[in-house]
């Protein structure tokens, strides 16, 4: 503890004085210092959320620019602007002003293209971020709320993007709005009313651009800002999760401090995201609305594609069979209702309840601050991949005409295949993923036990060849070993001392939960070979680990958490 090691740091007088004045008023020194020294862990996947955040900020910046020139009105004008190919054409003011932004405002096209690219990148980043959270189990206690907030932002983002896309009132966007009208009409009982209220009468009416506009520039951005703030506040308050690794436990955060490291890194990242979006806006043309002309319900431009985040809905509308019911003088449009609303609702419901389902099935009520590698939760990873395949098939079907042309497959065949694939594909994906995860776990376990293959082939004394192996380093081991959860799971998969089912497993509900539990926690135990801690979570409960094993598991876990305060709390709760 030598203080001679470094020169004492001295705050310059004027700054000290200013700081003093501020602290006199805000009592900020201690709290802000804590914030400045807050530790942020580092992993490339943690950047996905930041991409979404910075795209959102860029959307606001470029969006404000666009509002200065865009006229959200469907009043008709006859165009006499710079783009002579549309000279004399009847169009809405919205479309005319979008032409003006593109051709008569310097930097206008750039802003439009950056805005549009930022919208796509925003949603793509959200989707990747969501998958990262899902596959590493980062939504587990105490972060379920942030998972739900994230889903809310995802949903709002999809709506926001659709509304923005619809505002220029060109032939492409109008077609999208028409499809939305068709979907609204398909809602039983209230559908026609919803549609008439949205459009101010029959489609297309004179209202929707102005209505979409105020929702697009005020309502949803406001909601998104509130949710982003809540999301970030909770993230700071509950602290980041971290990936498993040396020195990382459930009770610490390892990384770099906010000030100055993280602040500079994240600032750099803002400029980086802005730069990449500017590159896209410069070199990758997006939505050249002048090429398709103004909207008319009479015509359509062939090969039109929605933005990628709507492709899933588009595909689902394409593959669903044409079922409708006519009963009692009413039409129920299953062919629209199910693909557009039920399937979307299903997807978001599953995502929303997932953390709670997993919690119920595993009986795991403990805190989780260290993420899991996907392989260490084979069932979750399998379910996730099933979802990805389900979504992916729908999404690809949204471009089935392009795929059919490029791959020379008959269009109808493609759709027929997709109709089966959406059911079979996810099942296969689940099964294969689970197998792969368990295989990888075996490899990890073997590595812990036998060491790492070095790739160096050595000749053995007996003339044979073998690959040299070296033991895993402590750092490697730290990344391989699953941290035991700080509390013992309640739902046991096996029997009590008398060979009878454990109390939590009796009754129908108990048996269902117990089966789910076994399925969820099935896998290989990745225990550190040296000290003999058993991993209660990853342990395959069948047979191999009798109830005797449990005593060990429990004591092992207690030992592992040591004096960790969160572990004790978790037990209080359980």
């Amino acid at each position, binding site marked *: *503890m030598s*203080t001679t*090691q470094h020169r004492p740091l001295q705050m310059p007088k004027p700054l000290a004085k200013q700081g003093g004045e501020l602290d006199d008023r805000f009592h900020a020194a201690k709290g802000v210092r804590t914030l400045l*020294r807050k530790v942020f862990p580092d992993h490339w996947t943690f950047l996905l959320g930041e991409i979404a955040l910075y795209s959102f900020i860029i959307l606001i910046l470029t969006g404000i620019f666009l509002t200065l020139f865009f006229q959200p009105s469907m009043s008709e004008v006859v165009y006499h602007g710079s*783009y*002579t190919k549309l000279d004399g054409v009847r169009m809405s003011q919205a479309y005319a002003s979008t032409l003006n932004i593109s051709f008569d405002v310097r*930097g206008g*096209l750039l802003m439009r293209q950056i805005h549009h690219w930022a919208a796509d990148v925003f949603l793509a980043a959200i989707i990747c971020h969501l998958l990262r959270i899902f596959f590493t189990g980062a939504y587990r206690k105490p972060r379920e709320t942030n998972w739900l907030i994230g889903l809310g932002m995802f949903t709002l983002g999809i709506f926001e993007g659709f509304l923005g896309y619809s505002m220029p009132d060109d032939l492409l966007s109008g077609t999208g709005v*028409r*499809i939305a*009208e*068709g979907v609204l*009409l*398909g809602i039983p009982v*209230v559908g*026609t009313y919803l549609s*008439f*209220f949205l459009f*101010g009468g*029959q489609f297309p009416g004179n*209202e929707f651009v102005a209505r979409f506009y105020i929702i697009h520039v005020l309502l949803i951005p406001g909601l998104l800002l509130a949710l982003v703030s809540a999301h970030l506040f909770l993230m700071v308050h509950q*602290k980041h999760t971290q*990936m498993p690794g*040396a020195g990382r436990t459930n*009770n*610490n955060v*390892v990384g770099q401090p906010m000030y100055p490291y993280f602040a*500079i*890194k994240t*600032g*750099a990242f803002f*400029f980086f995201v*802005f730069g*990449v979006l500017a*590159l896209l*806006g*410069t070199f990758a043309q997006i939505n050249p609305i*002048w090429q398709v002309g103004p909207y008319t*319900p009479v*015509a*359509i431009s062939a090969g039109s594609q929605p933005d990628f985040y709507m492709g899933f809905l588009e595909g689902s*509308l*394409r*593959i669903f069979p*044409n079922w*409708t019911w006519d009963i*009692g*003088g009413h*039409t129920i*449009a299953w062919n629209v209702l199910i*693909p557009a609303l039920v399937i979307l609702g299903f997807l978001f419901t599953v995502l929303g309840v997932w953390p709670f389902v997993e919690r119920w099935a595993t009986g795991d009520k403990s*805190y989780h601050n260290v993420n899991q590698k996907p*392989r260490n939760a084979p069932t979750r990873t399998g379910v996730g991949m099933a979802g990805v395949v389900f979504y992916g098939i729908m999404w690809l079907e949204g471009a089935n005409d392009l795929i059919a042309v490029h791959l020379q497959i008959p269009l109808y065949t493609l759709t027929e295949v997709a109709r089966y694939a959406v059911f079979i594909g996810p099942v296969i994906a689940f099964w294969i993923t689970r197998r792969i995860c368990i295989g990888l776990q075996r490899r990890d376990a073997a*590595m812990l036990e036998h060491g790492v293959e070095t790739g160096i082939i050595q000749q053995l004394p007996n003339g044979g060849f073998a690959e040299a192996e070296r033991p895993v*380093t*402590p750092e*490697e081991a730290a*990344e391989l070993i699953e941290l035991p959860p700080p509390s013992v799971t309640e739902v046991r998969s096996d029997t009590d001392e008398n060979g009878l089912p454990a109390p939590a497993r009796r009754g129908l509900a108990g048996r269902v939960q117990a089966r789910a539990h076994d399925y969820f926690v099935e896998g290989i135990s990745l225990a550190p070979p040296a000290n003999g801690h058993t991993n209660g979570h990853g342990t395959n409960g069948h047979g191999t680990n009798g109830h005797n094993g449990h005593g060990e598991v429990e004591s092992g876990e207690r030992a592992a958490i040591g004096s960790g*305060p*969160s572990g004790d709390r978790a037990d209080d709760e359980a």
Partner: protein
Amino acid sequence: MSDNDADLEIGPEERRPHRVIGTPPPAAGILTDPGRGDGEDEAPAAEPWIPADNPDPVSAKNWERVAALLFTLSALASVGFVAAYVGLEIGNKNGDVVDATLRSNLALGTALSVAMLAIGIGMVIWVRYIMPPVEVSEARHPLASDPEDRAAFAETILEGAAASQLTKRPLLRRTLLAAVLPVAAAPLIVLRDLGPLPGTSLRSTVWKKGTRLTVYGSNQPITPADFNSPGAMITVIPEGYADNDEVLAKATVIIIKMEPGQLKIPTRYNDGVNGPHTLLNSMNWTVDNIVAYSKICTHVGCPAALYEQTTHKILCPCHQSTFDAETGATVLFGPAPRPLPQLPITVDAEGYLVAQSDFQEPVGPSFWERG
């Protein structure tokens, strides 16, 4: 998942050099905040939490030059942005408007991209290679409050509830609820004037006996003789409504000319659940091998705009519903549930194609009251 494989191979160079200060912290050289153990209220530690200088001053100096170069580049790019803004004309005064715009876009966008990326990359170099590398650890504090705090909280809530009297006075509680609920419902009421009620407006279009079919685009009426090339399809709209999008959104029609004998339209009635059976398709509704169908797809309303001459299939480009033009636009494939409604047509005294009546069923997508 590829990140797993990456995780397994940690080269020594991938781990940041850790700086150990004072007594080495227990785990793998990570600095633990001496001022931030479990005892939150400790005074700031005497030694620095993070080191002041990079252990490798030579490399730091080199990287400093690179970062400085990038920051200078960014400043220059900003100047370039202003130059492009001022110097490059847009609009159609000098040649093609699209070319001028794309030129300006290229110059402005390149300058902006360089300006932003150079700052971003320069800052990354700054934090990674010029600043001293560091990895620190911070303790997490339990999120759950102490049991005493929880109990005190619950007590406060209960005290307040008791003082508010709401728990004891059901009359107060219920009338308050009765007063507040209507306020919550108010938006539903004040939003009523967003639009008119649908009524039966979706059931009919403006077509009526004698309305002329006019060609979309030229708005001219058409005679069967004008439209005499078999295999052709054109879009027609009711005369006088070329500028009315609400009308066109329902009343747009395609007419198709076939070779004699190719049209095999069955006489088809609806199921008659809601009153008398009405005729939905008829050969008598065609003129001279010309048949007229609604262009509004019965799936979700896109214009069914594609026509395959050889097979006589009408295709909706939105979700590929396919209709057979020969047999009354029956559905061959896709998500559309019903044939495209047929418009009864004939010729008027002057020989122009006209409607015999409106469509005999609602056009376009399904809706609840369609029946």
